[in-house]
C-alpha cells in the first residue's frame, strides 16, 4: 500500500550533455504538481533503484510538466542512467518533495546565489524565478565555481543570466586552465568581491558540504544573518518523504524538513563531525 511511494511514469524527451559525467534529462510527466525552486523529485529507474534529484527547471506542455533534472553519474543508479536512459526512455517520477528556497519570504531583497559544481542544479530555478519576477527582487549576484571550465553546467545559458537586469555573474575554477581568464581559486573567495549590503540581502548556497560551510561562515562574517543564509543539504536519501529515516541530520530530515535549511537551523549540527 505504498501509494506515496508509487511513481508516475514519465518519458525522457530530451537529453543535454552538460559536462563530463553530467547530463540533463528533460522528462515529460503528467499528474505531478508544479515544483517550487529548490524542490526535488525522486526518479525511479526500473529495476535499478531510485535517486533523489533536484528540479533544475521545468516547463508546461499540454497539461503535462517537463521537469529537468541534471544528473551526475556517481554511483550505481546514476551511472546506469547515463549509459542506458536516453530520449524516449521511461522513467518513474515522484515529487515534488521538500522545502525549497524561501523566495517568497525574501521579496524585496538582494539575492546572492553561490554554487559549486553540480550544486548549480538546484540553484538554477532561483535564477529563472528572479528573471521571471524581476521586479520582486533587488540585485541578483551569481557566484559559480567548478573544477574546470568544462565541468560548468548550463554554459549555454550564461548569456541569459547576464542579461537579467541588475545582475552580475562571477565564475571561478579550481586551478589554472588554458584559455580561462576568469578567477582561479575557490568560489567562496568570490564572496569577498561582492558588494551587496548584507542587511538587505539573502544568500542561497549549494555545493559540496565543505564549500557550503566555508561559504556560510564567510557570509555570516560579512554580516549576513544566519537566518538569511540558506543551504541545500545532502544526506543518503531513499524515500524522499521522511519515512525511511536515512537522511537524518540531527533531528532534521533532509528530505522533508529540507533539503533547504537556513544556516541557523543546521549550523550546530554541521559543526559536529559525523552527526
Amino acid at each position, binding site marked *: 500500500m505504498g501509494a506515496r511511494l508509487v511513481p508516475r511514469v514519465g518519458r525522457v524527451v530530451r537529453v543535454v550533455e552538460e559536462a563530463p559525467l553530467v547530463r540533463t534529462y528533460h522528462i515529460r510527466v503528467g499528474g505531478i504538481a508544479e515544483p517550487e525552486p529548490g524542490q526535488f523529485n525522486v526518479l525511479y529507474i526500473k*529495476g*535499478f533503484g531510485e535517486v533523489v534529484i533536484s528540479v533544475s527547471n521545468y516547463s508546461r506542455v499540454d497539461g503535462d510538466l517537463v521537469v529537468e533534472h541534471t544528473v551526475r553519474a556517481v554511483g550505481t*543508479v546514476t*551511472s*546506469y542512467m547515463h549509459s*542506458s536512459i536516453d530520449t524516449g526512455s521511461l522513467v518513474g517520477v515522484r515529487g515534488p518533495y521538500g522545502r525549497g528556497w524561501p523566495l517568497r519570504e525574501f521579496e524585496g531583497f538582494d539575492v546572492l546565489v553561490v554554487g559549486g559544481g553540480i550544486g548549480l542544479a538546484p540553484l538554477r530555478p532561483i535564477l529563472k524565478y528572479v528573471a521571471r519576477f524581476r521586479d520582486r527582487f533587488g540585485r541578483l549576484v551569481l557566484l559559480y565555481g567548478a573544477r574546470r571550465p568544462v565541468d560548468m553546467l548550463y554554459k549555454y545559458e550564461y548569456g541569459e543570466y547576464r542579461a537579467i537586469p541588475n545582475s552580475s555573474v562571477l565564475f571561478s575554477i579550481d586551478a589554472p586552465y588554458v584559455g580561462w581568464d576568469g578567477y582561479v581559486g575557490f568560489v567562496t573567495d568570490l564572496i569577498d568581491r561582492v558588494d551587496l549590503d548584507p542587511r538587505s540581502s539573502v544568500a542561497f548556497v549549494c555545493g559540496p558540504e565543505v564549500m557550503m560551510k566555508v561559504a556560510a561562515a564567510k557570509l555570516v562574517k560579512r554580516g549576513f544573518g544566519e537566518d538569511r543564509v540558506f543551504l541545500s543539504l545532502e544526506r543518503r536519501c531513499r524515500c524522499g518523504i521522511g519515512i525511511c529515516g536515512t537522511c537524518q541530520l540531527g533531528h532534521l530530515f533532509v528530505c522533508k524538513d529540507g533539503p533547504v535549511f537556513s544556516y541557523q537551523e543546521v549550523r550546530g549540527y554541521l559543526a559536529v563531525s559525523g552527526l
Partner: protein
Amino acid sequence: MRKVSVAVVKLTSCSGCINEFLYAVASSPELLRRVTLVYATEFQDLNTLEEVDVALVEGSVATQQQEELVKSVRSRARLVVALGTCAVFGGVQAARVGEDLRRVILASYPNPDFVSVLPEVRSLDRVVRVDVRLQGCPVNGDSLARLLVKVIYGGGEVSIVENACSECKRAGVQCVMVSKGVPCLGPVTFGGCGALCPSFGRGCYGCYGLNTSLVDAERLAKFLEVLEKMGMSREDVNSLLKSFSYSALARLQARG
C-alpha cells in the same frame, strides 16, 4: 535482446560457487538465453579466452599459473566479479598461510617436490582490480542471479553493507547467542546468507567473511572475549576467521 558474454574462471577452490552460477542460470531460462558462455572449463570444450563482458572468478590465487591466468582475465574482461569467499577473502585454504610450506605439503603428499604452490594464498583483489565482490562460501546463487540480470541490462547492484544480524532479525530468527548462549560470528560477519545458521539454531561460523567496515581489531578482540565466555576459544575463532576471512583479518592486523 542484449546478451552478455561470461567467462567462468576457476582458481583454488571447490567449484561450489561455479555450481551456484550453474544454478543461477538454470533457474531461469530467460537468464540463460541472455548469457553467452565464452569460457568455462567446467561446462564446455571451447576454451580460448577472448574479450568478455563479465568474468566470474572463483577461488583464490595460490599458484604462479593462477596469477598469470587471472591477470590475463582482467585484461580481457570489462567487469571482474570475485565470486565467493575464496576469491574475496582467500577461502579455507588460506588457513595454511604462514605455516612451514613443506610441512603443509607433507601432510597431504608423500613427495613434496612434485607439488608447487605459492606460500601465500591471495584474495583476488590482491592480484588484480576487482569490480564486484560477492562473498559467501558458497556465494548465494539468488544474489548472483540478481546481479547477472542487472549486468545484462547494463547496470549493477546498489550496495548495502550490514551484518548477518540484520538479516537474522528481519527473518524473525531468535538470536542464538543471546537466547541460548551459543557462540555466533554473525555480529561481525557480512550479511548475505539470510542468517542460515541461526535459522537452524546454530551459531554462524563466518563463511561470508569478517565485515571490516564495521569492526576494527580492537572491537574484534573485545567481541572474542564475549565468545570466549560462551565457551569458544580464541584459538578456534581465529582459525575460523583465518579460514573464511583471511584477507580481511590481514587488513585489520595491518591497520593495527
